């Protein structure tokens, strides 16, 4: 069997205040359903160890995380090898409950933007208030990265992780690299 590859084979670039690199393979499972349903919440908690996130929140537990994507959609981040079994477990545990679970790991690309200018790199591309007061750890933000949809979150160390469609991975990396090439403006 052929090996699983990321979209850009781990491309990276180093700018003056921030670095952009494509992350290793990440398992991602999309789960749609009624988030108010108790069975669904219990199943997610059982599988990932995470409580259901509230509006725009992201809950982390060890190497798994659950993020709120829309009023009826969650994104489950699990190790790449476990994405398939997660979908199978979800489908089995939620039988009879309205839901949709899909393994989207290979349909997405994941980037990490690190360094003290990480927020500025993204602020140059997204119509989002990225000041530390408005956007911090524990929030999943879906928005527009230049001309393509993207979702991103920031961790305690200030590293931003960004998910976009795999088909636009090249475009996203190009846009992020161009934004990371110049120095700081310090407006955030």
């Amino acid at each position, binding site marked *: 069997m052929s090996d699983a590859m990321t979209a850009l084979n781990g491309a990276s670039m180093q700018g003056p205040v921030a670095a952009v690199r494509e992350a290793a393979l990440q398992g991602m499972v999309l789960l749609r359903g009624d988030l108010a349903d108790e069975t669904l919440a219990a199943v997610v908690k059982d599988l990932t160890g995470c409580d259901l996130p509230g*509006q*725009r929140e992201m809950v982390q537990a060890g190497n798994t995380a659950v993020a709120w*994507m*829309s*009023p009826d*959609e969650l994104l489950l981040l699990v190790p790449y090898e476990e994405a398939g079994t997660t979908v199978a477990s979800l489908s089995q545990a939620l039988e009879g409950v309205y839901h949709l679970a899909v393994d989207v790991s290979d349909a997405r690309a994941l980037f990490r933007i690190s360094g003290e200018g990480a927020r500025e790199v993204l602020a140059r591309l997204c*119509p989002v208030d990225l000041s530390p007061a408005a956007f911090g750890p524990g929030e999943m*933000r*879906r*928005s*527009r990265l230049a001309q393509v*949809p993207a979702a991103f979150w920031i961790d305690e160390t200030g590293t931003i992780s960004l998910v976009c469609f795999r088909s636009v991975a090249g475009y996203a990396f190009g846009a992020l690299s161009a934004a990371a090439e110049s120095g700081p403006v310090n407006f955030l």
Partner: protein
Amino acid sequence: MLILQCPYCGIQCDETELAPGGQAHLKRHGPGSSDEDFEAYLFDRDNPMGVHFERWRHANGCGKWFLAARCTTTLEVFGTYSAQTTEPPAEIADRIRARRPNWEGRT
């Protein structure tokens, strides 16, 4: 620049994060309707200077449709609300009347 709050994610969305969907609160006239009604449903649109109701989709976000009440001349936004309504909610209408005392309601 138009900034609308998505009622589903609570984000203050920049216009570029949204996709416009035209006039809100249209009544669909389908099979069995008169030719006049069907033509009006297809082509007759309001084009007011002032209070207007529009459909928007949070395309680069949660992907949900919502409705917005705004002024076409000043870009003042009176509020956004669920798309599952046939009339603007009372609180939106009150807010419009507070700002535009001469507003005659939706015609």
